């Protein structure tokens, strides 16, 4: 889906370039994102840099500057520095935290810049011109519906959740709503902090505690890696499904290979930053209206469509 979009965007771009100068003035899009400190943010950095490169090549009149920051405080300084040096026509930001970034982003907005917010919303939604996010509730819900369907509405589940945050709560809520009304039973649910090592230990403990488990859901793929290793070690064969979420390439590879235990995946794609940068660029080069809210679905990734979500060069 994304890929066709880019092709479309590029085609559109070349048509526009062929037409006599739409605007000669060079536009600057600043992109502020968290530094790569785990798989998902590493994916964000990869896709942001890829988008910057592609857009600069396609539209010589648009400059894209990508800046990564390791913390909320550093991100505040980074966007102040970005705007101090030059005039920014647009800011694409994936905020570290909503509260701390709201005022600094408002200051950029007040200079007349177009503001695109990605993933985590600011405290004041009126600041953003465009909001692009994934759907965490759907990540849980899509997975739950798959299990209800495949287990014929009956079975014992164990769940591993991440770090106590809104993201985690939404995924769990989506999952619980998804299994509501069926006879699927969550035997246990514990935090493993989106960490493979903690997930490995927790899964060992689940296996020791429960003699019969039909399916495991780890609400993130990092944890799923630990879960799979613990199941392999135990030699237990009754576990029909071990599923994750997010779209890590190692797991998408399993889906492509037709893995029995992990046949599907649900995306919360870091490539959403790319969607946001492309749409922001469209505002300048195509005069295409993009103001609004875009919520990317978390559709079921199966063997049939997995290639669309597979980025072999990305770290995630």
């Amino acid at each position, binding site marked *: 889906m994304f890929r066709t979009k880019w092709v479309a965007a590029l085609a559109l771009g070349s048509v526009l370039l062929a037409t006599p100068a739409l605007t000669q003035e060079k536009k600057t899009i600043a992109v502020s994102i968290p*530094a*790569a*400190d*785990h*798989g998902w*943010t*590493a*994916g964000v*950095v*990869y896709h942001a840099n890829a988008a910057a490169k592609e857009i600069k090549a396609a539209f010589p009149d648009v400059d894209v500057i990508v800046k990564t920051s390791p913390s909320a405080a550093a991100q505040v300084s980074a966007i102040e520095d970005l705007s101090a040096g030059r005039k920014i026509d647009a800011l694409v930001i994936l905020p570290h935290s909503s509260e701390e970034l709201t005022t600094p982003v408002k200051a950029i907005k007040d200079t007349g810049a177009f503001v695109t917010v990605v993933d985590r919303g600011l405290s004041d939604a009126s600041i953003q011109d465009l909001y692009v996010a994934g759907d965490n509730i759907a990540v849980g819900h899509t997975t739950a519906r798959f299990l209800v369907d495949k287990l014929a509405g009956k079975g014992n589940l164990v769940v591993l*959740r991440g770090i*106590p945050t809104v993201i985690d709560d939404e995924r769990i809520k989506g999952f619980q709503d998804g299994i509501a009304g069926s006879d699927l039973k969550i035997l*246990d*649910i*514990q*935090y493993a902090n*989106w*960490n*493979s*090592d903690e997930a*490995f*230990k*927790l899964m*060992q*403990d*689940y296996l*020791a*505690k429960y003699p019969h488990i039909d399916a495991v859901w780890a609400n993130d793929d*990092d944890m799923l*890696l*630990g879960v799979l*290793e613990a199941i392999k*070690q135990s030699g237990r064969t009754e576990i029909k499904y071990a599923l994750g979420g997010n779209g890590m390439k*190692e797991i998408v590879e399993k889906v492509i290979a037709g893995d029995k235990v992990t046949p599907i995946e649900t995306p919360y794609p870091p490539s959403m930053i790319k969607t946001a940068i492309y749409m922001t660029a469209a505002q300048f080069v195509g005069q295409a209206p993009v103001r609004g809210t875009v919520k990317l679905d978390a559709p079921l990734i199966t063997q049939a469509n997995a290639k669309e979500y597979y980025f072999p060069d*990305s*770290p*995630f």
Partner: protein
Amino acid sequence: MTDMTAIGSIQHEPQFKINWVDAGPFIALAALLLVGFLVNPEFLSANNIANVVTRSAFIAIIAVGATFVISSGGLDLSVGSMAAFVTGVMILSMNALAANLGTSAIIAGIGIVMLAGVLCGLVNGVIVTVGKIEPFIATLGTMGIFRALITYLSDGGSIPIDRSLRDAYRPVYFGSLLGVPVPIVISIVVAVAASFILYKTKYGRRCAAVGANEDVARYSGISVTKVRTIAYVIQGACVAIAAICYVPRLGAATPTTGLLWELQVITAVVIGGTALRGGKGHIWGTVAGAVILELIANLMVLSDFVSEYLVAAVQGVIIIIAMLIQRLSR
């Protein structure tokens, strides 16, 4: 009874007396096992105990090294990051060598990771002793450096081990020797070697003397710089040994590998009866401390008492109770 902390274990302990300070962590461990069994009989199943003790191996091995650093009056906050960094270095070098060496790349990798660990420890030691920077600050600095290096090496993602090495290396975590899981065997070997060094060699006594009273040690002609630096080098070597056991488990290093291990390590050392202010170290107590920490986490999952939101609070309470049992058994 002789006041051991004051003179730093220079005298030989009387063999016929039970040393309650040494026994403390084991009493706490026994109490925990009993409580665990009452809560869920599954807790004492051979399988569960083997799993839990095996996975406490990393913390136990690193904590044995930390016992040297802490008893010599130092502190090392960088061990978790260092573990992640040397794990990354090991996997990258094994992957690079796999094409030429085949599975012997694992042996080469083990050599390289030991070298990397010793060098990292040496850097910490030299900054603390020659640079004369407070250990807390110096190792807080290197903690950030090692963490950033692993993030850089992995581009923020993960560094997986080459598929051709995966199965050959797997037994180092999942295999067993005479029925005992390999990481437990390695921990025991490390602890035996460490207690020999700490209790039976000149270096071990100097280590305790420096930790007990730096000035007195210096006036007695001990090179404080040398003793402390060696303690950090031992710590680095222990981190590398832990990495050797860690790599085959999940087969990857990531920026979140070893996160907060330093706190677990320090907790294990203190539960084991070694005072944070330095002086006498308790190697076997430290090992028991590491197992206690892992057992508590395991017990939290196996019991149904605690809501998932309160697990960390209950763990904190149990750690404090374990410390109190130790104190009272003195």
